[in-house]
């Protein structure tokens, strides 16, 4: 009774405080901003405001048993450029670097959350899930566009060949998921168990696999649209080298982190912050450097580097537990920041433009995920309850999918605008619904320690 009273009191306090802070923010927005110092101040104020508002909203939404990251994302959507415009596109762009550093932090956590022993135990289930999720989800989405695409007014202007190319690209992007959301939900729920391990293994592995699949898709689409008539082996070679170098650097970094923990240990979060910053910055810098000096396109992937670093610390040193505890201590501000900015970047306009197509696509994708996970679980001999509900864990989609859409847009401008709009709209739906279903399934299967 006392607990209920306290909870109600807290919620009322949060609502009132949120109201006061919002009114204050609105008042500040009406002041004349002249100098660059004031502009920087407005950016800082908005940053602090978003953190506070996201935190308070997540606490309010907790009553409805929604995951915290849904609260952060919803606040991001509301304050973002497509709804209230409190955060402008420029502001979001100026937070881009901090956002990248936050993502590297999350990637370290994702790598560190993978235990080799558990992965070995769940190997069969993980491989089958990856295989079926890739084939079935791609197949469903591809078929949907090929057979139904011309019925939607949004893409009616595309020729049948272009719809085919469009179907291939959307199909591959539909396979992508969001390891950052998965890791945030798992860490919020303190979830552990065979189901959680399988989901985490599949999600992280698919984040790597998607880059290869996307490269294949780009080549296929080039052929469909009448460009080069052959598979370009050089492209595959380059992608393989990029991934191998990223993994190698990540492994080295992981060894470095475990050495640091072993010998120095103090100020680990600061050290990791430096590393995350360094990895992000050096990856950007190496791109330009290799092109300018050697005319070689070598794109190091900061996500892969950080994930493999985390994996090496966890599985090839004795410092894994301490490493994860240190990351956990700073995880809350990182998640609030990352997901509220992710929310702010979700394109509401895109959803408005093609909502019917997006809803149908989302349903097709979820159906594909359901079939794939049920099939994989059944073949692997997982518990039937897991097989029936596993689809709920694979809905979330975020940054990687957006990145892929942007690459495709640059590559194929003739279908690029349609592609980006549909994918952004799809991500909007999946990123809002995905965390809710994932948390629900962890609760339902009893693997969540905190409900």
């Amino acid at each position, binding site marked *: 009774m006392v607990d209920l009273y*306290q909870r109600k009191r807290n919620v009322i306090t949060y609502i009132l*405080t949120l109201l006061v802070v919002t009114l204050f923010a609105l008042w500040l927005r009406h002041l004349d901003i002249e100098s660059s*110092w004031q502009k920087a*101040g*407005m950016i800082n104020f908005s*940053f*602090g405001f978003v953190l506070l508002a996201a*935190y308070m909203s997540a606490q309010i939404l907790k009553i409805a048993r929604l995951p915290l990251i849904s609260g952060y994302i919803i606040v991001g959507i509301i304050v973002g450029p497509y709804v209230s415009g409190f955060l402008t596109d420029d502001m979001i762009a100026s937070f881009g670097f901090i956002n990248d550093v936050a993502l590297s932090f999350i990637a370290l956590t994702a790598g560190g959350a993978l235990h080799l022993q558990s992965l070995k135990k769940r190997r069969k289930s993980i491989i089958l899930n990856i295989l079926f999720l890739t084939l079935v989800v791609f197949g469903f989405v591809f078929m949907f566009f090929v057979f139904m695409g011309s019925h939607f007014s949004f893409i009616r202007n595309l020729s049948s060949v272009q719809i085919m190319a469009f179907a291939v690209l959307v199909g591959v992007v539909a396979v992508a998921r969001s390891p950052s959301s998965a890791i945030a939900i798992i860490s919020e729920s303190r979830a552990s168990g065979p189901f959680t391990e399988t989901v985490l293994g599949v999600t992280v592995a698919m984040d790597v696999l998607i880059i290869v699949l996307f490269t294949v898709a780009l080549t296929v689409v080039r052929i469909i649209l009448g460009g080069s008539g052959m598979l370009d082996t050089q492209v595959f070679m380059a992608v393989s080298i990029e991934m191998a170098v990223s993994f190698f650097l990540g492994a080295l970094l992981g060894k470095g982190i475990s050495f640091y923990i072993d010998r120095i240990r103090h100020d680990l979060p600061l050290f990791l912050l430096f590393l995350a910053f360094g990895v992000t910055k*050096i990856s950007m810098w190496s791109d330009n450097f290799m092109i300018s000096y050697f005319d070689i396109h070598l794109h190091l992937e900061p996500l892969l580097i950080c994930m493999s670093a985390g994996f090496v610390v966890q599985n090839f040193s004795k410092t894994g537990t301490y490493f994860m505890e240190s990351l956990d201590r*700073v995880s809350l501000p990182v998640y609030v920041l990352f997901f509220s900015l992710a929310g702010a970047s979700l394109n509401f306009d895109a959803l408005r433009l093609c909502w019917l197509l997006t809803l149908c696509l989302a349903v097709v994708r979820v159906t594909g995920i359901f079939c794939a996970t049920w099939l994989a679980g059944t073949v692997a001999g997982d518990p039937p309850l897991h097989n029936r509900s596993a689809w709920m864990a694979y809905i979330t989609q975020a940054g990687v999918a957006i990145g892929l859409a942007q690459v495709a847009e640059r590559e194929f401008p003739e279908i690029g605008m349609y592609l980006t709009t549909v994918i952004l709209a799809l991500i909007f739906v999946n990123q809002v619904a995905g965390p809710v279903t994932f948390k629900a399934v962890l609760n339902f299967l009893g693997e969540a320690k905190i409900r």
Partner: protein
Amino acid sequence: MKIVFALLIIVFLTFSGYHLTFRSFKLPLFAREFYLTGTEFLFLGLLLGAQFLNLLNTETLRGLEPIGALLLGWIGLLFGFQFEIAKLQRFPLDFFKAAILESLLTFVLVFFSVYYTLPLFFEIPEVKHIVLSLTLSAAAACTAQTGLALLAPDFIDQHRKTTGLLRYVSSIDGLSALLIFGMVFFFRKSSITGFSWVGDLALGTVFILIISAGLVFLYIVFMSSHRDESELALLVIAMAVLTSGVASILHFSPLVANFFVGFCLVNLCRQKERLFKILVGVEKPVYLLLLVFIGAYWKLDSMWLVVLAAAYCFCRFVGKFLGGVIVTRLSPEMNDYPPHLGFGLLDQGGLSLAILFDFQQGISCDVSTSVISLALLAIIYNEFLSPYLLVRLLKEDK
């Protein structure tokens, strides 16, 4: 040349890493102080900055502005937390007077020296000229406790009375300097809008105090229910950045605004201990990050800076020395302390750096990089000078 410098800094930083890793490695006294106070992070900033690796270039620093605001906010809050009235009252009033007097004397001395010397070397418009002089003198007036923190505990025990006074003075003598520095920001507005400076000052101060009161109220609301440490850390981060942002929008110093908030919190908030624990828990990382950030603005492009920094350091030394002599003659009780008290007040730490960083963020001008470089060099000189003079002072102490 640039590559040679970069290589030298890399070697130096590798050595630093080696020192951090193998702590049993014995260094000479000055170098020990240099390493343990984290000054090598200034060089890390220099290496990462635009002059060498260009990883922390202007664009990146702009992208990291919220982090800069957080650092200023954090240090402002921490400094405000030093002024818990109930705790300050446990010490004699003479201590407080001594701290303020010594710092004001240094401030005035450095201000006039800088005011008349700077135009000989740099072309600066009149308003910026005052602003630069006020900033440099405010940074000079502050003292850090780094030297004291590195002394052996038994040595401190032998001189408990004097080290107690030094610790007290160095923890609060930045007050007057910080408040005067806060006024520098009103010059900024008057230079833009042409308003009367005095009018701006009165109105601006009242305005910022009202806003600070509102922010303190928010903190108190957040602290009213129980939260775990990570939630508290998130709230402090968000509030510090928010306060810094509000201050910038209203043409005020983020550092001073957060100081006001910290001062009110420590005297009004029941949960101040928990807040303080959060603030102090990452004090060192915040300080090190500040060193890196400000190091990135460091530009060693003229040998004159080395000489000017020595002159600036000397003026500060004279101010601290005279201040020490005067305050030990304030009252019969203060006569018990060694007259060379100023020897123990030479370390320049977090608050000085924060003042310089705040200046760089808010009122930078054509010569601000040179001025900051000069002040950073002086901070390094003081790091070398301070341990010897502190030990000498304590040996003098009967």
